[in-house]
């Protein structure tokens, strides 16, 4: 009774073909990641040790560890997050929940998208002009983190706005009908359901911030300092810049060392990402509607 017609058979073949094709593409995507990771572990794994992680570089950067750079990157990322997350989330809430639908709002949205496309070296120059010189913060963690924050703000804003808009309008209307103000509605119904999406934006920001070199190298990160930063007005070493330095700027570095630095850098990003992803999955655990 249900015999496949020639057309059915053909559709089924096409379906199989496309599934294979898309599967293959996905495989190709993962391949570079795997190659990078295996190379790094293979070449750099032997360098990693307790001393490598927790001592300063010695002998003109050709020996010793990476501790100041590690701590410096944590400082830079943390301060950048403290600045950009509240700012970005607030801006996204305004744009999504309060701003009237008019040309100005559209212009602002367009500007944000374009800001995301500005090359990081341009952000670096902006950071030098605005934070180092004009605001007179000097080359410091504060200036570098502000530069990173400006650079990653669009990511936070766009991700937050999208996750806010994924919350159906009907929920808001139900609250407004009960006499809730916009803010009460946002706080009690919209935000709690947008948190996991907002976290996605923060994850992206963390990864990007950790790896950036250009925006920090003129604004707060230095080649070498044996001291750990004591506050936001200090200069600091950073992992990304340190990797650049040991791979290209100083002679006589053992071949394995840069791989080790890169491995730790990647490890930091991956650890933070998986922590955030685990947290996000925990929040998203059950389907809400």
């Amino acid at each position: 009774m249900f015999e496949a017609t020639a057309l059915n058979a053909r559709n089924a073949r096409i379906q199989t073909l496309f599934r294979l094709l898309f599967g293959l593409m996905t495989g190709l995507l993962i391949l570079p990641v795997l190659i990078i990771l295996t190379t790094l572990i293979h070449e750099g794994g032997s360098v990693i040790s307790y001393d490598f992680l927790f001592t300063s570089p010695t002998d003109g950067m050709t020996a010793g560890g990476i501790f100041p750079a590690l701590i410096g990157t944590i400082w830079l990322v943390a301060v950048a997050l403290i600045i950009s997350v509240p700012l970005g989330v607030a801006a996204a809430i305004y744009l999504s929940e309060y701003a009237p639908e008019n040309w100005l709002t559209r212009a602002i949205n367009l500007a944000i998208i374009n800001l995301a496309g500005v090359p990081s070296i341009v952000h670096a120059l902006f950071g030098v002009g605005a934070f180092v010189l004009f605001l007179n913060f000097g080359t410091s963690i504060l200036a570098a983190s502000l530069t990173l924050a400006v650079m990653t703000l669009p990511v936070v804003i766009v991700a937050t706005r999208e996750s806010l808009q994924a919350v159906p309008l009907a929920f808001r209307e139900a609250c407004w009908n009960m006499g809730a103000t916009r803010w009460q509605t946002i706080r009690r119904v919209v935000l709690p359901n947008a948190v996991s999406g907002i976290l996605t934006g923060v994850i992206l920001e963390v990864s990007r911030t950790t790896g950036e070199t250009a925006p920090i190298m003129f604004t707060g990160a230095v080649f070498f300092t044996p001291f750990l930063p004591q506050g936001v007005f200090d200069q600091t070493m950073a992992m990304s810049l340190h990797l650049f330095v040991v791979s290209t700027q100083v002679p006589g570095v053992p071949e394995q060392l840069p791989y080790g630095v890169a491995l730790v850098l990647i490890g930091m990003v991956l650890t933070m990402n998986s922590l955030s992803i685990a947290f996000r999955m925990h929040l998203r655990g059950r389907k809400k509607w």
Partner: protein
Amino acid sequence: MVTPPSPETRQSKVKLAVEGLTIRYGSESALRDVSLQIYEHEIFGVIGPANSGKTSFLKTINRMDVFNPNMHVEGTILFDGRDVRRWRNVYALRSRIGVVFPLPVGLPLSIYDNVALAPRLRGGQSSADLDVIVERCLTRAALWDEVKDRLDALGSLLSGGQQQRLTIARALSQDPDLLMLDEFSIAVDPVTTMRIEDVLKELRNEITIILVTNLVQQARRLADRTAFFLQGECVEIGATEDLFTGAVQDPRTRDYVEGKFG
């Protein structure tokens, strides 16, 4: 053209006075020059076929029109004698009006929090008070027995009919002066509908109810007076029984009530 209200309602004070209400979406009018009065402690039915402007009418009463820049309202609506468009605090106005629109909305909060939301927004309730309010409202909405053992389950994951009753419970939790029901029984089974209708009859002693319904028999069972809307026009307002016994001013009303169109 308004038939005199029944003696019982005549003595009541006017809760809602609508005068020359016209609603337009862009240049299309959805309601034209409607004037009517709704008395305190009555159930006021609004019947009419699709597209007749019933939902738009309700939205202007609790000022939901402000969220649609395309929606233009003329005329006056006096709520307790005060023009709803002059209320300085529109949130206070809305909190006194409970609304149930046809699409059920269970908020993505627990069942308990869904019903406790309005009292919490208003503030000043102890958690024991909240427990009482939640139980009372869910019971009145004929939902308590089904959910009393899982009040912390998500309201947004209930079945359609349950969400509709949850919406009703939420509207009641506002402790409103005026309850506006827009096709509240659309997703509710007949037996449960009857239970809610009984509650509405009791509620009449405390509050005023506007009942928009596609089921003319429901209007007949519940409403003291009923208005018939047709394509944006208020064709007739009268004691509900008159509409059904044929004592009508406009033949279109009789045709609609008898099911000849709509």
